């Protein structure tokens, strides 16, 4: 069978699959819109292949087949994501508030899709799907889909879109590279221990650090890792600023003490993230019930060769140097663009009073106030709660989601 025949059939299968997905019951229009765009794209791929075949030029045909394969590989997980966005396990009531929050942070043309994942990790495609440039795709772990208490983690995931939208990687790249160079020069002994085969090198000037291919590569690797880490710190800063103390609780619920295994080099160690949150998050962690938030997390040290260890230590060090600045940046952006969504203690107290009376709140505060009140309800009642009656998380999630829905209803009603 020729590769063009196979590719044509594969594209036909993808388009057929999208057609079937388009028959789904869509709770929100964004998923349907995204599917239509993907269908149009793959129809374009099929036409491109047809034109390539007509040329009878083998390299052109091979190129078209290769591109089609690559696109199928790239976008099939997105189709799965869109399919899961229609599943009724999702907390659809939260959609409107999260969309509003996304638009406040990213602009009124932002689209939002809430889905669920079969990985135990919140996931986002932060406006980096080239065919869906204005779409923020957020998936929460399927087992936690009905749990409204973890909604603050959406703040972190939205942070990735803000990071991209504000082009902060470009903004910080030079600073990070310079700090990586500085680390290397001021910790030269560590470098020599990690790379004994390069003992002939000595502490160099900045220009020489750039010109030396080997050192430039090491610095580039340190910078890349550190940029990934500071993006995560930035996202924690966004989540914390928007959701306040409930971000601490959701982070702790989800991640403490660890996920087993070793830390991911792309993130600061969990305990360090926790330390940054407690130090720079503008919230007194003792007041919200954590004696030492950092010590709630225990992660095994990354076991690796001396080269990887040196690079990771350097990246951690560089990240540590800029963490405060990154948090300030996140706080400034969140407060400027989404001030209406930041915590309001009076609103939280009112909502908590409603929850204590067994009823949802009515158009008071924002999604963050509602979730904060929910966590406070859990904290105040968990020790005396009889789970046999009904699990407290299930009960409070009902109140939270209904309160968020009422918020949407009232906003719609006000526009009438």
């Amino acid at each position, binding site marked *: 069978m020729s590769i063009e025949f196979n590719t044509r059939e594969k594209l036909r299968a993808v388009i057929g699959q999208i057609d079937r997905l388009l028959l789904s*019951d869509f*709770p*929100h229009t964004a998923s349907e819109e995204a599917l239509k765009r993907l269908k149009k794209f793959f129809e374009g791929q099929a036409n491109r292949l047809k034109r390539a075949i007509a040329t009878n030029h083998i390299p052109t045909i091979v190129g078209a087949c290769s591109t089609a394969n690559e696109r199928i590989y790239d976008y099939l997980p997105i189709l799965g994501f869109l399919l899961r966005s229609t599943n*009724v396990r999702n907390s*659809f*009531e939260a959609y409107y508030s999260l969309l509003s929050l996304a638009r406040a942070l990213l602009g009124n043309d932002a689209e939002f899709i809430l889905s669920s994942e079969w990985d135990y990790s919140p996931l986002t495609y932060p406006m980096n799907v080239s065919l869906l440039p204005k779409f923020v795709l957020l998936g929460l772990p399927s087992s936690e889909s009905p749990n409204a208490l973890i909604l603050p983690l959406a703040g972190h995931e939205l942070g990735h879109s803000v990071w991209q939208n504000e082009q902060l990687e470009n903004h910080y790249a030079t600073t990070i590279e310079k700090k990586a160079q500085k680390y290397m020069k001021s910790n030269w002994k560590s470098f020599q221990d990690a790379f004994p085969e390069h003992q002939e090198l000595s502490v160099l000037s900045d220009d020489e650090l750039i010109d030396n291919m080997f050192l430039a590569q090491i610095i580039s690797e340190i910078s890349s890792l550190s940029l990934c880490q500071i993006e995560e710190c930035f996202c924690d800063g966004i989540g914390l600023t928007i959701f306040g103390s409930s971000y601490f609780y959701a982070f702790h619920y989800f991640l403490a003490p660890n996920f087993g295994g070793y830390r991911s080099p792309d993130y600061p160690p969990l305990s360090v993230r926790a330390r940054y949150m407690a130090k720079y998050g503008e919230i007194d962690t003792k007041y919200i019930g954590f004696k030492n938030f950092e010590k709630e997390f225990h992660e095994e040290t990354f076991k690796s060769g001396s080269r990887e260890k040196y690079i990771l230590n350097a990246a951690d060090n560089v990240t540590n140097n800029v963490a405060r600045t990154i948090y300030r940046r996140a706080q400034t952006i969140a407060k400027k663009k989404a001030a209406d969504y930041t915590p309001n203690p009076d609103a939280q107290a009112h909502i908590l*009073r*409603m929850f*204590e*009376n*067994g*009823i*949802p*709140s*009515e*158009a008071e505060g924002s999604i963050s106030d509602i979730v904060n009140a929910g966590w406070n309800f859990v904290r105040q009642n968990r020790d005396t709660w009889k789970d046999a*009656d*009904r699990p407290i998380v299930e*009960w409070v999630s*009902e109140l939270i*989601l*209904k309160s968020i*829905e*009422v918020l*949407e*209803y*009232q906003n*719609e*009603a006000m526009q009438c």
Partner: protein
Amino acid sequence: MLNSSELAKKISLGKNADENGLSIIPAPQVTDIEESGESSVTLRLGRWLVALRQSSQTFFDVADDKVELRAEARAAKFYFIQFGNKYVLHPNRFVLGSTLEWIKLPATLGAYITGKSTWARRGLIIETAAGIHPGFSGCLTLELTNVGEVPIIIRSGMKICQIFPHNVSGGEYKSHGPLTGRRRPYLGAPSDDPLYRSLAA
């Protein structure tokens, strides 16, 4: 029954989480109720529907054990309908809905739920288990059935039913705890019936 003025007072109390009040969230306009002179509160259709679809399930037997209840749950298909979007209820079809409003009755109030006459005259039955006990808290599950000859479009957010609250003598006893409430339609499990079990043994 409560007159419109008493009803408005109870709703105002409930809005502020007073345990003697009638909480309806989102709350209706109290002035509208006072001016209407009516003894009822109109409620809207929520966004979740549950249809019992055809499956390998041969029958429902609510007296049977929990295995049967799981089978019932398997036959239930949930739908989430955006405000203003429609769901077509064909003749002789049945779907569970819920009120948009979350209701909490104090110990001193019970209520009855009924359909709206405009719907009833077109063949839409709203509710058959109409009693709401004191202390109930949650969205009311509606049993929507089209007994007419013509398909009926129902839309989330539209006015669907009304409740008639009434005083309960004594008003201390709560037949439901505060934790039974749900935001989505609920198929529910029958309460344990030891007498029936011994009769059937």
